[in-house]
């Protein structure tokens, strides 16, 4: 199954001779796509918020003060306060670096292992390919969040375990895409020529295969960050990820559940924060795909 993966469809693998020209045309295509620009700016904004935001907030994200619990949004507390009297705006800002790191590092874990498996499988083929692809099939046989859930359940509840679990959950997707792209590049004549000239496998893989399959990897990594953030927040919502009083958005949403009736903002705001960040990566990833892969979606 899955022979037709949308991500790899029609991607061009022509070897690049002029790196600058390639980047310029990529940027031109990206800047023509308004949705992608909005996504890109949102991603940058999120990253800036994550880096400097925590220094600019005036409250302590973990300080409990029952005298000001469950306040509605106001000039003093922009997003109100939660059931422990903590300022929700401060907690959202402090949750941003957590959310982005979880997304980034879990995708990094998934991409590194996925690329190793995929390149190995696609480049060497044969028995290795058969074995690796069967392992990938097995990993894909666990529906959705279930593999990550099972891993966290045995390793223990913490954000680090969530990163590992969500990373493992992303490995098969990367492995498949990288394998497909590697196969396509390996068949090109100039790779045969390189080999005939006596280039080593290592040189061919690092100097020629990897640069040429970087587009689908970058696109997939961006879109995968969105999925990773959603999955990780789901695990935290279930109480299997970040533990209190960590200002993780999924965990905050879970805290707010019991107050939906009278104080819906406690659960609504972390949800909106998740939507904004995930939307940013989805928009940007879509735009990157259109820009890096001009043939698709025409």
């Amino acid at each position, binding site marked *: 199954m*899955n022979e037709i993966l949308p991500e790899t469809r029609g991607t061009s693998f022509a070897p690049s001779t002029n790196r600058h020209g390639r980047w310029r045309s990529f940027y031109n295509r990206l800047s023509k796509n308004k949705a992608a620009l909005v996504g890109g700016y949102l991603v940058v904004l999120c990253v800036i918020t994550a880096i400097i935001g925590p220094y600019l907030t005036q409250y302590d994200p973990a300080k409990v003060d029952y005298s000001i619990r469950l306040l509605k949004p106001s000039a003093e507390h922009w997003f109100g306060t939660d059931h422990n009297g903590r300022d929700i705006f401060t907690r959202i800002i402090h949750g941003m670096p957590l959310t982005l790191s979880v997304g980034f590092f879990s995708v990094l874990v998934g991409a590194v292992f996925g690329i190793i498996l995929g390149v190995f499988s696609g480049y060497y083929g044969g028995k290795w390919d058969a074995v690796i692809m069967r392992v990938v099939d097995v990993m894909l046989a666990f529906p959705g969040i279930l593999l990550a859930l099972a891993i966290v359940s045995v390793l223990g509840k913490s954000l680090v375990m969530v990163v590992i679990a969500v990373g493992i959950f992303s490995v098969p997707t990367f492995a498949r895409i990288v394998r497909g792209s590697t196969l396509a590049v390996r068949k090109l004549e100039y790779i045969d020529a390189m080999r005939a000239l006596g280039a080593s496998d290592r040189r061919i893989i690092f100097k020629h295969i990897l640069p040429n399959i970087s587009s689908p990897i970058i696109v997939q990594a961006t879109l995968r960050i*969105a999925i990773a953030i*959603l999955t990780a927040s789901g695990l935290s919502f279930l109480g299997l990820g970040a533990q209190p009083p960590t200002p993780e958005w999924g965990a905050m949403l879970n805290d707010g559940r019991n107050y939906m009736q009278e104080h819906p903002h406690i659960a609504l705001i972390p949800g909106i924060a998740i939507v904004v960040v995930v939307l940013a990566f989805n928009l940007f990833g879509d735009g990157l795909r259109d820009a890096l892969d001009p043939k698709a979606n025409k």
Partner: protein
Amino acid sequence: MFQYIIRRLLQTIPVIIGVTIIVFLLMHLIPGDAAQVIVGEGVPQEQVDQIRENLGLNEPIPVQYFNYIGGLLQGDLGDSIRSSRPITDEIFTSRFWITMELAVYSTILAVFLGLTAGIISAVKRNSAADVGIMIIALFGLSMPNFWLGLILIQYFAVDLGWFRPSGWGTWSQNVLPVITLGTGGAAIIARMTRSSMLEVIGQDYIRTARAKGVRERVVIYRHALKNAMIPVITVIGLEFGGFLGGAVLTETVFAVNGMGRYVIDSIRARDFPVVQGTVLVLSLMFVFVNLLVDISYRYFNKRIDLN
């Protein structure tokens, strides 16, 4: 065709064996002494030893695995530590069927909404409807479904009182969980249908059909849609799997007593044999559905060599 089905069935066997190995190894990934972790701290040593004995953790690992497989072949998933009841009974009395219903209804909703929206979008490309649908789909894709569930409960069940906020079985209980679980999938199917349709509409034979004077409606529905459906079918199969996994969150939010909630309750209670059993059953279900999807794919599309 028959040969293909046999070959595809044979290919499934190593996957199933692999799934059982991973599920089996879960218990051995527990850091430290699994029996101790399960019973918790401050429990007499005899009780820990008893649990270890019951779970067969004293045997060498390969022996344990073969015992596990032996049990599975007889439909035995082991006993729940909490209730001491056979897990197979716990799951197949009602939980399995509830989660299947939830996943199947959600798939139906997602396919209906996703296909309709995707076709409208592709046919009316760049219109206000197209842009609107794609923006909604993007939000559907970016929304945590447990958050959507909480909002739906608050608005439609608590404030308006149209539906029941929890449980499963009656119409008024089923609507909200199905919407919660199905929307994300609908968004993915809508996007996939749109891009697949656009690709097909751009092909030469569609231009030929139009040039021959075939009516637009016939071009779209008879020629374009049929070929555009090929990649969409795969996505639908994958989404069904996503729903089986997503049921964990949806069932927790709506207090539905299906397999998803059973997994979560068991993780909290450190009832690992139940975690193993439910993960295994859901995964086998997913493998089975993908097998059906692949076979139907082949059936509808004899040109493709899926070897």
